[in-house]
């Protein structure tokens, strides 16, 4: 029997459809882009927001958790802030719109809106698979961002800071970045709420490292207590490319940060480090899908989580090793410090290995503060609350220290200790 079913949309789903209808007239894009947007939204409408029945969303039932779409326009008047690292080239995106006055030295940059308008963005506007809700939402609504290109052989002395600031509203941004062969650069991607007004943020960064490029990319998510942040980082690594990817979540009410990484060139190396500082009534999801697709590639993934209050979090780490990707060496670890009985963190490691000569491992720990450490500090006169704070801080600061470059380590450590001071 054939039955016509009309899926009922949730309030949030209906609001997204309605928002699209209202915005599509002035969303940037040529015919092809608008066609793609329509299709992505249509797919979203048909499948709805993902629920826990979809495996990759099992721990983050977006349909249930994401209830309300804020008004499209937040408040105006947000202005750029000082970069995390002095001397950085700052690329500002305010309320989702790129600030065209950009001073770029040693690299080229243009507003992503231009790529939408001339249609060159269309091939990137895809969902990665049928469950890619973030790809669909972002592809439908994205307005602006920056397209970055660091030429082959360039060695940028100063970091580039992408500064995406908002004061509530619907913010959909995109940051494609190509690093030419042998290029060396450090990028800080900073998402930050400047007010308490609720925001829905979606943001995708497409990072391509060509052969031998060496990049440090640091994502800092500091959204507000009422914000939903749906992030995705898409990475491809060429031959001998080296990427250090730091993902630091220190804000937001509902956060999903997806990392879709394809290691495509022999000799490539990925260092993924994650820090999740979670407090209040929040939910944060970091989902990694990492493909080691060719022989002789390496990666390490370390995720450190600290949870207070009633915060919940999840790390899903899937490593796929292709059939001919011999000599892959991948090590994943996820360590959690639970500072409250009402907080919880789930870890779901998955290894899909189709090659036989590989080293792949994963480990997860959940712990309280080490009592031996606490006693040692206290026995030297450090009061208990201060000693605890030092140890929590140490647990995550270790990750920052791995960057070694003091210019990067110091501001990250400061960000971490500021957050802990406010929440502990």
């Amino acid at each position, binding site marked *: 029997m054939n039955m016509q079913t009309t899926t009922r949309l949730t309030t949030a789903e209906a609001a997204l459809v309605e928002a699209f209808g209202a915005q599509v007239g002035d969303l940037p894009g040529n015919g092809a882009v608008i066609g793609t947007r329509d299709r992505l939204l249509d797919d979203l409408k048909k499948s709805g927001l993902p629920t826990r029945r979809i495996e990759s969303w099992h721990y983050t039932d977006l349909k249930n958790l994401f209830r309300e779409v804020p008004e499209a326009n937040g408040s105006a008047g947000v202005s750029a802030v000082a970069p995390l690292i002095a001397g950085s080239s700052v690329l500002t995106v305010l309320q989702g719109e790129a600030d065209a006055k950009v001073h770029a030295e040693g690299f080229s940059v243009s507003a992503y809106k231009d790529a939408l308008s001339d249609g060159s963005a269309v091939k990137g506007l895809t969902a990665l698979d049928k469950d890619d809700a973030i790809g669909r939402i972002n592809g439908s609504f994205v307005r602006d961002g920056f397209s970055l290109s660091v030429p082959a052989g360039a060695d940028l002395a100063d970091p580039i800071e992408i500064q995406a600031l908002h004061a509530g509203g619907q913010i959909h941004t995109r940051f494609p970045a190509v690093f030419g062969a042998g290029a060396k650069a450090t990028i800080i991607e900073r998402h930050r709420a400047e007010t308490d007004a609720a925001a829905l943020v979606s943001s995708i960064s497409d990072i391509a490292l060509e052969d031998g490029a060496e990049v440090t990319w640091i994502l800092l998510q500091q959204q507000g207590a009422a914000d939903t942040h749906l992030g995705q980082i898409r990475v491809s690594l060429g031959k001998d490319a080296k990427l250090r990817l730091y993902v630091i979540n220190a804000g937001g009410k509902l956060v999903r940060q997806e990392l879709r990484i394809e290691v495509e060139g022999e000799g490539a190396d990925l260092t993924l480090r994650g820090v999740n500082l979670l407090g209040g009534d929040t939910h944060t999801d970091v989902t990694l899908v990492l493909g080691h697709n060719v022989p002789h590639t390496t990666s390490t993934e370390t995720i450190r989580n600290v949870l207070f209050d009633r915060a919940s979090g999840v790390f899903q780490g899937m490593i796929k090793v292709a059939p001919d990707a011999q000599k892959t060496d991948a090590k994943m670890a996820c360590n959690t410090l639970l500072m409250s009985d009402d907080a919880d963190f789930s870890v779901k490691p998955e290894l899909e290995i189709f090659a036989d000569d590989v080293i792949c491992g994963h480990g997860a720990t959940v712990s309280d503060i080490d009592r031996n450490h606490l006693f040692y500090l206290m026995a*030297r006169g450090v009061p208990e609350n201060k000693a605890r704070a030092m140890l929590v801080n140490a647990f995550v600061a*270790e990750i920052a220290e791995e960057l070694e470059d003091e210019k990067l380590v110091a501001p990250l450590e400061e960000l971490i200790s500021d957050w802990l001071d406010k929440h502990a």
Partner: protein
Amino acid sequence: MLEIKNLHARIAEDGTEIIRGLNLTVKAGEVAAIMGPNGSGKSTLSYILSGREDYEVTEGEILLNGENILELDPAERAAKGVFLAFQYPVEIPGVATMQFLKVAMNEQRKARGEAELTTPDFLRRVKEVAADLKINMDMLKRPLNVGFSGGEKKRAEILQMALLEPQLCILDETDSGLDIDALKIVADGVNALKSPDRATIVITHYQRLLDYIVPDTVHVLYKGQIIRTGDKDLALELEANGYADVIGQAA
């Protein structure tokens, strides 16, 4: 300075009694050596003095300058001048040694109502003491005790002791793991801290350390009690004959 009266203590977790009616008095200015076979309760005693929660005092009292300190937590005891140089100092990754030293010194000062050290004063102090103990400042740039060799850890303990200027110093097998030269340096460090208003408890198995840090009194701890007290000659006697005689006489 320190009076321990009829102390009974057990492991909090399983109730096993380790300290069984221990009496010990250490006067200001005195160096007291505690010796005793493995497992007799020496480290346990040092932990109980510094307030470790794993042990429960069921009877008796510990008086520091006449004040019962049993209700104080380890940090409060440290501020009152108790210092334990650990038998096995722990490595604490992520905690910078210098930052830790500064926090510890200043927290103790704050607790005693003294002014905090300025950074230049702090650095000057650390450099001075480190030089005396032949500790390389580069070592102190690492996280606390992380990757320090056995001997370096012991030296770092004495460095902390010198910086914190405690009233009651407890050294738990500080000589183990030290080479001959380091033993001398560490002993000199301890001796330099000797003063009429400071008491020192040296826990050791070997006369070698007591050749450098000459004790005023020597106490034998066995099965949670002090079974014999004497002067420095007692240590020599133990070195020559072992514990059998002393234990036999006490039984």
